[in-house]
């Protein structure tokens, strides 16, 4: 008999589950779609979403598919190489006059959260634009200092993410393209600038990092083979790291790789101090990981019509995302307090809303998306090891690809879900999951817990409207 449905018919059932019964009984294979209204019930946005669906026979549908394919090709083929460590002002144009970088989307001083204001005060004193914290605060509130998001200059920074002109940044080059990305150096835990602390111990450490740590790393890098950060990350994912909240394996691998060159190119006291610093800082690799993710996502940015998410970042007040197809536009919504476990004596009332550029890791397919690789994370964020596997599986629903460079052993070496498709987020109502630390809302107290944050769906809805509204068509059936 001639066939309308094909030889081994496979049907999708979208809606009332009972409709699967008749065709199943007749021998067809029926896959139930657990449907719920897309776009949180907004019919108009649902129609915009439908117009963006892949369709080779339609200009908009074809362009979306082609744009996403190109964006993903660039992301997956990116090769982040750690090239150097340099003072920020030597390579970031925007830091020539009194300007500071910060994490997340743009924000004014008066709106900033406690930890970010504290970090800015510390940075102003470090740069000697003021001689005391009070003077620094006055300078900032009077508009005497410029504030630019790290993301705007190809940089990323965890937590407050404040970078000042004399602070060292790592330089990560995309060997498969030509762009570079930057990140500051990780100070360690406890009283640190990125949580808004700015006392003498904090500034002393930062000065040591600029004067001793950074040059030592720079000399070591110039005397060794190029350090491929993607390879290192891939190895770490098979050792229990996820690349955002657990970085100990990657830090250890990095230290092992660079140690001989440090010893060869630095005076012994410096070498010892640097190696001791690396040995005591389990999160040192985080900043390198972030820059590596940033360089790949930047390479995939600016492709007309692409719905790939190229940034997720928080400034402690707002959560912002960017899409490849809308390049530099931010789509923001209020940042929320993560859900997790608190250190003794602290609770949700003390918590600052989610903060930092470190969600760039999830944007590139690691961190919370690779949680299956790090079941031990549940000891810090709560839940059971099976939840870690479920989190990664859930993220498969909203991503384009399984990253061949990030194989996850607990899931039979399937590649980490990589490349967030804003369409899928809005269609399924599945928000990206982020593994994150929780900061105290007051400057300088530090980390008070760790947990899971969800990117606000409103950001992705706004992003699709923004993409559709660029005269690209969209809207209507």
């Amino acid at each position: 008999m001639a066939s309308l449905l094909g030889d081994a018919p496979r049907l999708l059932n979208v809606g009332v589950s009972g409709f699967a019964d008749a065709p199943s009984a007749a021998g067809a294979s029926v896959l139930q779609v657990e449907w719920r209204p897309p776009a949180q019930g907004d019919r108009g946005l649902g129609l915009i979403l439908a117009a963006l669906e892949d369709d080779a026979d339609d200009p908009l549908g074809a362009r979306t598919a082609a744009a996403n394919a190109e964006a993903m090709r660039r992301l997956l083929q990116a090769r982040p190489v750690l090239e150097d460590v340099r003072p920020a002002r030597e390579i970031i144009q925007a830091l020539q006059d009194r300007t500071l970088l910060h994490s997340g989307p743009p924000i004014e001083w008066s709106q900033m959260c406690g930890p970010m204001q504290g970090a800015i005060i510390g940075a102003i004193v470090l740069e000697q634009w003021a001689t005391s914290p009070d003077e620094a605060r006055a300078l900032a509130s009077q508009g005497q200092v410029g504030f630019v998001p790290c993301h705007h200059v190809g940089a990323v920074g965890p937590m407050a993410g404040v970078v000042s002109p004399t602070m060292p940044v790592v330089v990560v080059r995309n060997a498969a393209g030509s762009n570079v990305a930057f990140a500051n150096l990780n100070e360690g835990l406890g009283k640190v600038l990125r949580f808004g602390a700015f006392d003498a111990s904090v500034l002393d450490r930062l000065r040591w990092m600029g004067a001793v740590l950074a040059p030592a790393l720079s000399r070591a890098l110039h005397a060794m083979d190029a350090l491929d950060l993607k390879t290192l990350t891939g190895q770490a994912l098979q050792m229990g790291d996820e690349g955002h909240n657990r970085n100990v394996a990657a830090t250890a691998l990095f230290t092992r790789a660079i140690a001989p060159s440090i010893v060869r190119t630095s005076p012994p006291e410096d070498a010892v101090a640097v190696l001791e610093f690396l040995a005591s800082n389990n999160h040192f690799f985080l900043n390198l990981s972030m820059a590596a993710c940033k360089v790949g996502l930047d390479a995939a940015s600016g492709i007309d019509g692409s719905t790939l998410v190229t940034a997720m970042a928080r400034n402690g007040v707002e959560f912002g995302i960017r899409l490849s197809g809308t390049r530099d536009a931010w789509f923001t919504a209020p940042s929320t307090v993560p859900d997790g476990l608190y250190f003794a004596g602290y609770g949700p009332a003390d918590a600052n809303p989610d903060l930092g550029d470190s969600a760039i890791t999830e944007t590139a397919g690691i961190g919370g998306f690779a949680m299956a690789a790090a079941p031990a994370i549940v000891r810090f964020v709560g839940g059971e090891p099976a939840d870690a596997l479920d989190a990664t599986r859930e993220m498969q629903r909203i991503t384009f690809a399984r990253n061949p460079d990030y194989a996850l052993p607990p899931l039979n070496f399937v590649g980490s879900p990589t490349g967030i498709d804003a369409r899928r987020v809005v269609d399924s109502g599945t928000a990206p999951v982020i593994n994150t630390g929780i900061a105290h809302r007051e400057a300088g107290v530090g980390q008070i817990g760790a947990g899971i944050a969800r990117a606000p769906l409103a950001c992705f809805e706004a992003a699709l409207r923004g993409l559709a509204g660029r005269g690209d068509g969209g809207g209507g059936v």
Partner: protein
Amino acid sequence: MQLRPTEVVQAVVLPNTYRDSVELMRLAAELEHRPGVRRAGLMLATQAGRAVLDEAGLLTTDVEAAQPGPNDLIVAVAGEPSAVGAALGEAKAQLAGSAASTSTGAQRGEPPPRTIAEALSVAPDASLAIISTPGAYASAETAKALKRGLHVFLFSDNVPLEDEVELKALARRKGRLLMGPDCGTAILDGIPIGFANAVRRGRIGIVAASGTGLQQVAVLIDRDGEGVSQAIGVGGRDLDARVGGAMMLAAIDRLGADPDTHVLVLLSKPPAPEVAERVLGAARATGKPVVVNFLGEHRLQRDAGVVRVVTLEDAAVWAVAVARGDAAPPAPVLAPALLADAAQASARLRARQTRVEGLYSGGTLCKEATLLLTERGIPHRLLDLGDDEFTVGRPHPMIDMRLRSEYIVQAAHDSSVGVLLLDVVLGYGSHPDPAGELCVAIEVARRAADEHLVVIASVCGTPSDPQGLATQIDKLRAARVIVAPTNAQAARLAAVVLESNVREEVRA
């Protein structure tokens, strides 16, 4: 609903808890069965949902105050306080449990897909999507499915006409079928979809803008020993002027090119005239014999390979004859045994019982019966209980017999009603035992009318249907229902039963 002094109403809001309407109504019915529970309602907090709960006296002020949104679920129960609390607990437990996947083909440990795009990454070889989401969202889902190259069976109604026009244009561009909106039935490659009967595969192709019309013709073809190659539903509005018969034309093209389809049967309510011409022209152009039933034709017309018939039964009978290369089939007549039953029944009626009360689950069957009774001048009220006004917050009468049972019992108290006319539709998707359920109400009605009530039914089904055709007919006969072989004959029989009473009344 008047509450007793000891009774209370309690409601909870479950945030972000979407379940389909069928599941919610089933759960409500279950809760209402519990002792001490007076009424239960589970609805999404859309405007419409809140209105339904309000109507039922189940919308509490604390739920209103919580300002639930359209993705939040309101569970409300009225009754004795202890029973209400337990019922709410039971509802929450069942809803939590029903979040688990029941899908076939899902990989172990993988959550079930939530979108068509996700489903296609799991099953890239899928060829058709069955869509039964609420109407407001059906257009977007249909567009996505068509763009990804799937055929679509669209059961949802309340889809805007402009959307239907655009979606059918999209379907034509993609070379795919969009069956619907408001399509209840299809049988593709022998696979039943929606409300469909188990019929033999064979050489007759059916294209229908009507669900129960398709079902009636298909089961009669099967009864007479022929079979169906493809039965393609196109949705109730397809032959309207604006839609222009888009899908019927596409289906005619397909069946025209299908070597296994030897005869085309086209079914619809009367199309816009220019659409009828286009459709008939396309059908003729296939070079295959065509049998057409546009409901409301008054006489048989034959014209160069196209036969236009009066009833659905005629369509089936002609299709079978043409498929076999037989000469024109004799017009169906009421069998002598049936006429004898009618005469006996007629004798039981009182003089003032002059009208038919029809209670239908199939819209087309209802319309057909209405036309036949009108033609014969028999007073009647035929209700299509599947119509929107009856199905808000209620399951469709093909699935649930309660509303019809209520109307059946009521009819017995109306002294002008002489004949109760029913359709019993079997097949996949329908109630597992419609005859059994209806007979309970029929017996009650009969007693209430002191046996002065004639009940006539036709059963639309096949021996292979889950309910079993013979079993269903036996149950009806045991309740002394006169069972006619087709809907058209049932209507004509009703006319025969009431003829003399009607004539007497006219004379008087």
